[in-house]
C-alpha cells in the first residue's frame, strides 16, 4: 500500500511541482512570506525529523552529489500558508498548477537554504508521503547545478531513497545515472582522481646520466689482473609504462673500463623498475637488473671478472621538508667465472649476496648533502682447480660513503664516494666480482651528471 502511494506520489511530482521550484523570491524582504506562517510543530515538522533520520541512516552524504542533502533537509525553514486565504490568494501564491489542473503540496527555490513552503493540500498527506515530500524539496536545493530544477531527477532519487529496503548502492546508481563525464565535477566519475604527492618520484622518474668512477686499487689483493683504474657509465632509465600512480621503467647502463694502458667495454646492465607505491610521502620501487660481461674468454683470461650477475631488490624512500631517507634491500644471485693462470684453469664460485643500504641526508634549496652505509653478506667464495681448493665461507663487506648533489630544475651534478669500512680479513670489492655494482679495489670516487624527466 505504501509503495503504491509512493509511486502515485512520485507520479504526481513527476508532473507538477515540477513546475516548481518557482522563483517566487527568497523571502528575504518578507513580502513573499507574509502569507505564510513558520511551522514549528505538527505533522510536517515531525515528518522532517523522520526524513532526516532516514537519510542519515542511509548515509547519503557519502554519495557524490548528495553531500548537501542532509543540511538542506535539516536547516530549511518550513512555512505553511496562513489560514483564511482565498482561492485567488492561494493561486497567486502558487498553490495550484499553472494550468490549474492540480494541487501543489509544496514549493522551494533551487538555492541553498531556501525555505520550503507548504500549501493546504499537504495537510492531506500521510507521514510517509510527507517524508518523501521533504526529501524531494531538499533535493531541489542540494543537487548540483542544472540538476536542481529537474523534477524527474528529484523524483527518481526520492523514490530510490524512500523505497522499502533500499540501499546506498541503489541510491548511488540512480545519482550516477545522471552523471555525464563532461558535466558537473560533483557528479560521480568512473574512477577517483589520482593525487600524486608533490615530492613523489613519479613526477620525474626517468633518468639519463653519465658517471665516472675512479677506483682505489693501490693496496689490494690484486685478485684481478686487469689493473682497472676507472669506469665510465652511461645510464638511461625510462618509465614509459604504468597507470595513474604506478610507473614501470626499463633501462640500461653501458660501461667502459679504464686500465692503466687501455680502455675497453665493460659490463652491460639491463634493468627493469616498477614504481609500485607513492603514498604518505613514501615511494616504493622494485627493481631487477642483469649485468652481463661483454669480454671474450681471451680478453678475460687473466681476470675473474667475467661473471654475469643478476640482482633484485626494492627501494623505499621518503623525502621530507629538509631531509630524506632511503632504504635499499637487494639480493644478488650466485654465479661462476673462470680464469686461466699460466697453464692452470681456476674456477671461481661466487655465492649469493644480500645487501642492505641506508642513504640519508639533508637538502636545502638545490643542494643535497648526505651519506650512506651498506652491509653486504656474501654466502661463500670458492676457488678450485685440479689440485687446489679454497673457500672463504660467509663474507662481509661493510661500506660507507658521502655524497653531495646540486639539483636545478631537471638536472643534477653529484659527487659521491664509496669506501670500505670493514670486511672479512683482507677482502675488498674484488671478491664480489661485480664491477658495475660495487667496483674493484677498496673504494671509489664517483662523479655523476643526470637529467630527470
Amino acid at each position, binding site marked *: 500500500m505504501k509503495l503504491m502511494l509512493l509511486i502515485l506520489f512520485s507520479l504526481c511530482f513527476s508532473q507538477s511541482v515540477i513546475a516548481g521550484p518557482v522563483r517566487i523570491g527568497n523571502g528575504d524582504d518578507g513580502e513573499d512570506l507574509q502569507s505564510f506562517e513558520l511551522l514549528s510543530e505538527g505533522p510536517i515538522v515531525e515528518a522532517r525529523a523522520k526524513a532526516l533520520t532516514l537519510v542519515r541512516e542511509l548515509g547519503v552524504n557519502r554519495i557524490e552529489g548528495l553531500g548537501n542533502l542532509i543540511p538542506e533537509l535539516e536547516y530549511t525553514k518550513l512555512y505553511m500558508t496562513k489560514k483564511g486565504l482565498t482561492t485567488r490568494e492561494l493561486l497567486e501564491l502558487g498553490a495550484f498548477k499553472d494550468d490549474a489542473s492540480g494541487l501543489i503540496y509544496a514549493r522551494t527555490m533551487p538555492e541553498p537554504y531556501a525555505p520550503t513552503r507548504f500549501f493546504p493540500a499537504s495537510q492531506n498527506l500521510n507521514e510517509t508521503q510527507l517524508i518523501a515530500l521533504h526529501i524531494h524539496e531538499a533535493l531541489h536545493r542540494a543537487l548540483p547545478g542544472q540538476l536542481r530544477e529537474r523534477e524527474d531527477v528529484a523524483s527518481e532519487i526520492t523514490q530510490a531513497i524512500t523505497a522499502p529496503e533500499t540501499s546506498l548502492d541503489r541510491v548511488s546508481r540512480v545519482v550516477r545515472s545522471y552523471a555525464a563525464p563532461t558535466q558537473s565535477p560533483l557528479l560521480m566519475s568512473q574512477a577517483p582522481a589520482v593525487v600524486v604527492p608533490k615530492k613523489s618520484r613519479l613526477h620525474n622518474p626517468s633518468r639519463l646520466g653519465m658517471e665516472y668512477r675512479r677506483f682505489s686499487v693501490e693496496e689490494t689483493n690484486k685478485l684481478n689482473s686487469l689493473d682497472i683504474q676507472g669506469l665510465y657509465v652511461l645510464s638511461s632509465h625510462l618509465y614509459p609504462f604504468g597507470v595513474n600512480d604506478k610507473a614501470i621503467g626499463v633501462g640500461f647502463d653501458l660501461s667502459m673500463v679504464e686500465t692503466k694502458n687501455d680502455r675497453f667495454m665493460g659490463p652491460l646492465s639491463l634493468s627493469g623498475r616498477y614504481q609500485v607505491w607513492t603514498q604518505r610521502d613514501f615511494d616504493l620501487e622494485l627493481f631487477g637488473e642483469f649485468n652481463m660481461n661483454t669480454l671474450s674468454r681471451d680478453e678475460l683470461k687473466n681476470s675473474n671478472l667475467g661473471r654475469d650477475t643478476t640482482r633484485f631488490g626494492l627501494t623505499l624512500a621518503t623525502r621530507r621538508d629538509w631531509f630524506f631517507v632511503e632504504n635499499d634491500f637487494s639480493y644478488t644471485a650466485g654465479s661462476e667465472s673462470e680464469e686461466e693462470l699460466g*697453464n*692452470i684453469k681456476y674456477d671461481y664460485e661466487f655465492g649469493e649476496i644480500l645487501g642492505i643500504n641506508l642513504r640519508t641526508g639533508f637538502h636545502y634549496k638545490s643542494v643535497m648533502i648526505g651519506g650512506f652505509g651498506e652491509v653486504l653478506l656474501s654466502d661463500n667464495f670458492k676457488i678450485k682447480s685440479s689440485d687446489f681448493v*679454497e673457500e672463504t665461507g660467509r663474507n662481509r663487506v661493510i661500506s660507507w660513503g658521502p655524497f653531495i648533489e646540486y639539483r636545478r630544475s631537471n638536472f643534477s651534478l653529484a659527487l659521491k664516494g664509496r669506501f670500505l669500512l670493514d670486511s672479512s680479513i683482507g677482502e675488498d670489492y674484488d671478491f664480489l666480482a661485480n664491477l658495475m655494482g660495487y667496483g674493484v679495489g677498496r673504494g671509489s670516487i664517483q662523479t655523476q651528471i643526470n637529467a630527470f624527466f
Partner: protein
Amino acid sequence: MNRLIFLLLILSSCGEPLPGDPFVEKQFFANELKLISSDINDPRDSSTFKQSEYTLSANRRLLVRLESMQSRTGNTVISRTKRMYMTVSSAALLSRSAELSASIKICPMKTNWMLLATWSRPHPFPTNSSRWSRSGGDFEEQECFSPDPSYPNAQADTLYFDISDWFVYQLQSRSINYGLIVTSTSEVTIYGDENLSKGPKFIWTEF
C-alpha cells in the same frame, strides 16, 4: 755343466725384468710452476710463471707441481730399482756441477698453493691458510731431497732427485698433491716450463 750354467742363469734373473720388459718409463713436464721471491709482492707478476728460465737464490724459490698427478700415476711402479724422479736442468751445471749439486734441493710442500702465491702467501684469499707458516713456503728441511748421482744415463746439465718416498707417502697414501719447492743456496738459473725440452719434469715407471 751346461745344465748348471742354465740353472744359475734362471736363478739370477728372478729379481730383474726379462727381455721384453712390460715396464715403461713415463716422463711428464711439470705444468704448474711459480716463482716466489722476497722482492716480488705482486701475485700476478708476469715474471713469476710461464717462463723459459727462472733464477733461484737464497730468497728466490720455485714451486713445482704436475697437475692431476694422481690420475696420471695410477700404474706407477715403485721398487728398489724402479724409482720416481724429478729433474732440474740448468746450463750452469755444465761448469758448476759440484757446487750446484750441493746447493740445489727439492722439498715436499706442506701447504697447498696456487699460481697467485707469493713469498708471504700461498694464495691471496682471506682464509685461515692465507699465509705461509714461515716466509718462503712451508716445507721441512730434513725432508728435502738432494740430487741422486746414480741415475743411469744422466745428462750433464740435469740433476735427478729421487722423490719416490714423497710420491708413496703423499700422493699414493694420502692423495695429497701439494707439489715440491726447488731451493738453492747459490744463485742459479734453471730452465722453466716454457722450455719444451729442459723444463722440470717427472720420470717414473709404469707397467
